[in-house]
């Protein structure tokens, strides 16, 4: 307490810096997006937002995001469960590899898939014979999105599961509970909030993904353009109203995610207090 009193000046200095920083780097650009989007009046904005291609792009983004969340939830829970509840050879390696997408540039992630599934790849003839197209098509976009959001959910779960230990599961299994019952009754209540938080982070990241998706998409308007790619396309075409209007959709989605995150964090913390 003493320390805090003495450093009142420092406290206000830090507050000022934080707010100026946030203002310049975050609030101002967001405000600018809204202003530019509305530059041609409300009707211009509505026209831009309800543009056929804009809606298609938004739907594709939601589609890719949904896939990424579903796949990564399943994989994330499985991986976190495996890493925290079992010991096996190569465990360290596995948990390191899960983090790979965070450290690798998204462009490289995109290129990896082009090399794996593209025309020059050995897999291409097989896929082609079944009529499956991955590169420059929706599956490629989904794959890229899954790749970049890969670690988000498992990374949220691992610390929670580690802190919990395996005692409660052992106790339940000694009483004859099956794996599924143990997960549902004992493990899931622990990871519920962390899982939701991971889903939110995953969603946010998936919606905004540009780099990897850009490499794999082929930029076919109305077919393989996600919202971020569409925005870039409009921007390159000097359609500022359109670009910023589309951006505002992403911003609104981001704000919704942010609010969700706040609610989840609050609820989770309250429950944590109860169950220390």
């Amino acid at each position, binding site marked *: 307490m003493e320390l805090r009193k003495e450093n009142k000046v420092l406290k206000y200095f830090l507050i000022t810096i934080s707010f100026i920083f946030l203002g310049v780097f975050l609030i101002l650009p967001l405000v600018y997006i809204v202003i530019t989007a509305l530059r041609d009046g409300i009707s211009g904005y509505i026209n831009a937002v309800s543009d056929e291609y804009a809606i298609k792009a938004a739907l594709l983004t939601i589609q890719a995001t949904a896939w990424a969340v579903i796949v990564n939830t399943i994989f994330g829970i499985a991986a976190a469960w495996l890493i925290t509840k079992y010991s096996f050879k190569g465990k360290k390696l596995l948990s390191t590899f899960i983090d790979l997408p965070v450290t690798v540039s998204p462009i490289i992630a995109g290129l990896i898939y082009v090399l794996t599934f593209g025309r020059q790849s050995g897999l291409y003839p097989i896929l082609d014979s079944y009529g499956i197209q991955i590169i420059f098509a929706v599956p490629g976009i989904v794959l890229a999105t899954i790749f970049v959001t890969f670690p988000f959910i498992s990374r949220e779960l691992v610390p929670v599961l580690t802190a919990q230990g395996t*005692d*409660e599961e*052992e*106790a*339940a*299994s*000694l*009483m*004859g*509970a099956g794996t599924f*019952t143990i997960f549902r*009754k*004992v493990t899931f*209540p*622990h990871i519920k909030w962390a899982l939701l938080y991971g889903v939110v982070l995953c969603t946010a990241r998936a919606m905004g993904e540009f780099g990897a998706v850009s490499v794999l998409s082929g930029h076919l308007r109305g077919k393989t353009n996600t919202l971020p790619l569409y925005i870039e396309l409009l921007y390159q075409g000097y359609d500022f109203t359109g670009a910023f209007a589309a951006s505002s959709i992403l911003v609104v989605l981001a704000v919704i995610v942010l609010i969700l995150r706040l609610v989840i964090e609050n609820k989770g913390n309250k429950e944590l207090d*109860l*169950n*220390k």
Partner: protein
Amino acid sequence: MGYVELKNINKHFKNFHASKDINISIEKGRLVALLGPSGSGKTTILRMIAGLENPDSGEILIDGKVVNNVPGSERGIGFVFQNYALFRYMNVYDNIAFGLRVKKVPEAKIKERVTELISLIDCEGLEKRYPSQLSGGQRQRVAFARALAPNPQILLLDEPFAAIDAKVRLELRTWLREMITKLGITSIFVTHDQDEAIEVADEIIVTNEGRVEQSGNPQELYKNPATPFVARFIGNSVEVKNYEKFRYFEKCSGDSTAYLRPEFVSIFKKGESVQFANSAEEAVVEDIIFRGSNLEVRVRLHGNLISSIRSINDSEIKVGETVDVFIYRLYVVAGDEVVLATNTSLQDEDIVI
């Protein structure tokens, strides 16, 4: 034949040999302590009986049947974990009911059993509380009730008092002993605290470095330590290398060491003792520690710091004072042998510990 038997059990954790040729036999209805320092393999033995670990070799028998391949949940055991492992997201009622619900017992019967157990552990009114809202002692009792709910034949407890503060621990020890005696359930608990083992258990199995050193009732262990480790471990033993210098003690063999417990030593103020006036030795008091109900007096004798307990009703002794010291007996360890050496001036008298 014992109700729970372990035959030639070996267990490795990677390169660590946690259990070395363990042979244990526990009779039905006994309350047994697995006592040993940390890392001595006592918890591993408990977890193998529970089926939480599998032995590399050897057989585990319960009620005459080999259970090596029977899952823990079908061995008829209740397990109380060291930190209780209560389900944090379930209230007391649901915690106790869990094992019964898993077994698909009708809800009415569950209610009956849980109510019965809650009154047994004296936790009426706490049914709706979550584990975080309970005191350490209450958690312990709920864990006990949860383990008992499905009517197990054997109760296993891993360091049941380790996480509780000293005062409550003493109460709980007595409580647990009474409960287990009342229920007549075969119980095995792990502890590193010899006071706890001696006070609570009918029988103690002493483990050290993955081996069973000795098993027997507390008095036996105290009186006749079978191995050097037990002689050292039980009681507050002081190591004495040159015990042959003590009056009326002779060197047993060339390379031997003696272990002396405070209760083997009496310290008298000069002229206080008539009985041992001629056989006692003089020593100087180095330290006196007040222990509340008694005093620990430490004297230097032939270079060894020796402790003895003195009643607070005895006349006061001060640091630096010269006193008479009489040693009744000590344990002499030579190689793997433990010999009880008695003061030769006492030879004809019979002293009970």
